[in-house]
């Protein structure tokens, strides 16, 4: 009998993923990762989430483990998250966690412990393209998570299963309810797991780095407002910019940390036809030519072209991508790889 290790977060998706693997005849064990030692929205180090995962495992009759990755998580997710803000980037810590913890350390660990596959409850499909495994979008467009898993290469993908890819979220909840799992009606986690909704990002970062005040200026350099924490401003942001009561819709066009200035302006000034990219990750071979590109977890994808140096050119100008954000490339529904928007990609001088 094949052995499956299911990463169980204590949410409804991974609960059902575990149930489906049991139904498929695998010898299943569940594991919950203890990632964050501090407060979270489900209590200190998410104890109630671990309790939920353990209880679901009991209901399914499978063994449940807890792996302590708190030190690793701090080192490869939380510290880089704070440092990225200090460098003027808008990082995506969930992607870093998937990259370093779930689809690196945990995959290796499941191998070590004799499991044939690592299973998660992500809404993505593993498909076969010319005999090779590829990651593809979920059938549920609204829940598709291929963006945050784009860094899984085909070698790792071969060792993973995603049993929820052909189900909608409603299907998943329905299945959980039928199985009587305590997670069936549990609300979805929304934000970064290590930042509580009561504390918020600004307080979390404020306790771990120095946040600097800055000026908001318009394109010709006139000061039009101020900010208490320039490190918290993201390119493309409109809400939360203190523009002294101006009713005109203006957006952060550029954030210049050294000079402590944020350039603000109208939406059309945000548009650009190119994205400067770095840190490319390919599922298999590097791709040149036409792709569909997606720049946020639940955004739409748009036609673009990758050139030989890995830079992206939109078919139609698009809003700038904040440096630090991932850009993920698709061919139809299939993930090809991704990269990170580099600093400087959004400077006003580059816009056309």
């Amino acid at each position, binding site marked *: 009998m094949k052995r499956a290790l299911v990463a169980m977060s204590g949410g409804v998706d991974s609960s059902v993923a575990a149930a489906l693997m049991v139904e498929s005849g695998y010898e299943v064990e569940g594991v919950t990762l203890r990632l964050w030692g501090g407060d979270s929205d489900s209590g200190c180090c*998410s*104890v109630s989430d*671990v309790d939920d995962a353990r209880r679901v495992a009991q209901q399914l009759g499978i063994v449940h483990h*807890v*792996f302590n990755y*708190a030190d690793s998580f701090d080192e490869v997710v939380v510290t880089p998250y704070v440092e990225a803000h200090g460098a003027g980037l808008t990082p995506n810590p969930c992607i870093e966690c998937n990259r370093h913890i779930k689809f690196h350390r945990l995959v*290796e660990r499941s191998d*070590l412990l004799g499991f044939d596959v690592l299973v998660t409850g992500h809404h993505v499909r593993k498909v076969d393209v010319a005999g090779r495994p590829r990651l593809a979008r979920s059938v549920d467009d609204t829940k598709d998570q291929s963006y945050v898993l784009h860094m899984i290469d085909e070698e790792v993908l071969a060792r993973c299963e995603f049993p929820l890819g052909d189900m909608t979220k409603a299907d998943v909840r329905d299945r959980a309810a039928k199985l009587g799992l305590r997670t069936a009606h549990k609300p979805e986690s929304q934000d970064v797991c290590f930042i509580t909704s009561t504390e918020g990002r600004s307080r979390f970062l404020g306790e771990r780095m120095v946040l600097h005040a800055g000026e908001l200026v318009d394109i010709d350099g006139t000061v039009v407002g101020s900010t208490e924490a320039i490190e918290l401003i993201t390119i493309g942001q409109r809400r939360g910019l203190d523009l002294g009561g101006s009713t005109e819709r203006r957006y952060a066009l550029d954030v210049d940390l050294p000079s402590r200035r944020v350039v603000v302006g109208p939406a059309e000034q945000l548009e650009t036809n190119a994205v400067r990219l770095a840190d490319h990750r390919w599922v298999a071979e590097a791709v040149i030519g036409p792709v569909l590109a997606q720049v946020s977890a639940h955004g739409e994808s748009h036609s673009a072209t990758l050139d030989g140096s890995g830079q992206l050119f939109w078919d139609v100008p698009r809003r700038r991508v904040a440096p630090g954000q991932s850009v993920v490339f698709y061919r139809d529904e299939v993930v090809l790889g991704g990269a990170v928007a580099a600093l400087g990609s959004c400077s006003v001088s580059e816009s056309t």
Partner: protein
Amino acid sequence: MASDDLCYLDHAASTPLRTEVFDVMVPYLRDHFGNPSGAHRVARDARRALEEARDRVAEVVGSSPHDVVFTSGGTESDNLAVRGFVSQEYPTPVCPATEHHAVLDPVEHLDGRIVRVDSTGRVDLEHLAASLDPSVGLVSVMAVNNETGTIADLASISDVVRSSAPQAILHCDAVQAANWLDLVDVYAKVDALSLAGHKIGGPKGVGVLVVSASATPRPMLLGGGQEHERRSGTQNVAGAVGFAAALLATTRDRASQAARVSALSDRLVAGAIAIEGVEATVGAEARVPGICHLTTSVNSEDLLILLDREGVMASAASSCASGALNPSHVLLAMGRSVAQATGALRLSMSHGSDNAQIDRLLEVLPPAIETLRAASDGSGRA
């Protein structure tokens, strides 16, 4: 796997309930259900059983029956001692860094002082003396460490406390000692003693704090005034009966069990340290026979999973609330590295442990460690 095949080497976590204990508890779960504080015959039956249990505990420990306070277990007994013996006049509690969290956490909560230990886990007596002054209300030292099995030098500790802080109450968490040490001897050196039922073949949810009548802890639970106002709440009669029976059985069997388990422990450790990278944390002369603590070169979480698959149940360090393993504060206090603490393995025995279990362990431990070591060498993972 049938339960007969299980190789249970986690007695320091909890022990199987002795059959003789179960048998004497049943009537107090089923028939004699009365509230021992009541006035009628059903209540009197319960009260008689409770007081008989108290007499037996007092006899084993060498105390007055008035000294015995029934509690819900070791953690409550420890908390009652630590929190109950600090006051405005004597606000400072003191304990070694290797105490169980049931002592360490309340001591830290009360801004107490933490005393260093040596590489064997024995209290640094000079640092203890330096930590004592007229503000100290309580010193708490465990007789036997629950992770490493290290036996404390209570005689020397007692001397230091009596001379440097004569006003302080000396409390001893003897939860892990009851299987191995003469409790009369232990209690003679201290003012208060914690014991727990489920570590000695008794039920969970019951323990005692034995404390001389001259030193009354401030109660944590207020209410009906049971246990001489020291611990309110209707007593767990069946639990107390079971606890006393388990303590009697443990005391009766102590010498023969110590000899028998010593031989098992010698075999276990000799076999384990023959594996590359495995070391015994504390020498046999410094620990009780029932707790064998090892450090390995592999991750405890992984090792416990592989052992469990083969029917061998062991443990590593203390778990946090989520169930995740944390590097042991005990090993870190003994000067071990985080890497060593991450590879901890505790194998613990008492009644019911036998040679067949050691055979099984020594059959599965080497390949389990080898599997993990080969893989981690290959991937460069610590």
